[in-house]
């Protein structure tokens, strides 16, 4: 270090935020937190089902007010294994850990989440998975602890007192 010369200045941002979720996302997280239900929205026009739910269909540009309860089971569309730890604060786990995009049964879109109770080498695209919810839930996406491979012959652990139409199993509405 040269005397009388500063080379780098350390600094940081440390600013609190409080982002409003909006009516739609609030409903999703309330239902997840209080009743362990996974709610999706459906567009009346193109009939696409969105998970995570959103208020406006991006293709039809229409507001969606139809809610559909989805089961906790789905199909793994893709996955990756993170081997690099860079922040205790920003990462949900210490590496290595696996992340995947899951299409819940009945949805047309994928939900990104952690994958657990699985040997990384056994992960496969197209694998059937199910959500594992935490006992104590706070109203955020980590109320789902992770998705794990569906055991052969296991039922969905979701409650069945759904007030919305039967969710349909996936592929027919694509394309």
């Amino acid at each position: 270090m040269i005397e009388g010369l500063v080379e780098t200045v350390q600094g940081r941002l440390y600013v609190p935020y409080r982002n409003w979720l909006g009516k739609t996302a609030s409903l999703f997280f309330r239902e997840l937190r209080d009743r362990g239900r996974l709610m999706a929205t459906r567009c009346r026009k193109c009939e696409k089902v969105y998970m995570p739910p959103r208020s406006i269909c991006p293709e039809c540009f229409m507001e969606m007010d139809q809610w559909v309860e989805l089961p906790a089971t789905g199909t793994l569309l893709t996955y990756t294994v993170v081997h690099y730890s860079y922040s205790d604060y920003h990462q949900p786990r210490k590496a290595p850990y696996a992340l995947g995009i899951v299409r819940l049964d009945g949805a047309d879109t994928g939900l990104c989440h952690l994958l657990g109770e699985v040997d990384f080498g056994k992960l496969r695209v197209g694998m059937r998975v199910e959500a594992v919810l935490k006992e104590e839930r706070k109203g955020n996406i980590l109320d789902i602890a992770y998705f794990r491979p569906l055991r052969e012959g296991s039922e969905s652990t979701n409650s069945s007192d759904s007030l919305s139409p039967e969710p349909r199993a996936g592929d027919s509405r694509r394309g």
Partner: protein
Amino acid sequence: MMDEAELLAQERILEVRFHWSAGPYLGRFLGMLKEEGRLWVVRCPGCKRILMPPRIVCGICYSETPPFPKGWFPLSGRGRLLDWERVMYPQMDPETGTIRPEPYIHGTFALDEGVLFTHYLGPEDLDESTLREGLRVEAVVKPKEERVGKPTDIRYFKLVEEGDD
């Protein structure tokens, strides 16, 4: 039925660390402040104004300035009070997320060399009613072991008597 009343918010703290390269000019300025406790500046060869903090080109006439030490000189740290503000509302420091206690006084000073400078006016129990435009002020620099190479190496500016050089 679904309860629509509660609207949720996600709370989080954005914490990101940075390390900025100071560059040869500002690095020298901050380094000399840390080393000597003095403000070293450079004069623009084109329009002759003092660039404080020093920089590689003058923003107005776009002349290049010479690197340290040619054309550089230290400011005395003395001048006159031009204007001040008593900050009476709470402000958050984006570096720490903490609220800076108020009130405190922030001043604009016309330094003897013909440069304007802004910094705190101290000490903390300074009586604002004693302030007048034109009063003599002087920088109070932290002791060397406390200096880190930031503008806060100057603790504040204090009022001094005329002729107190």
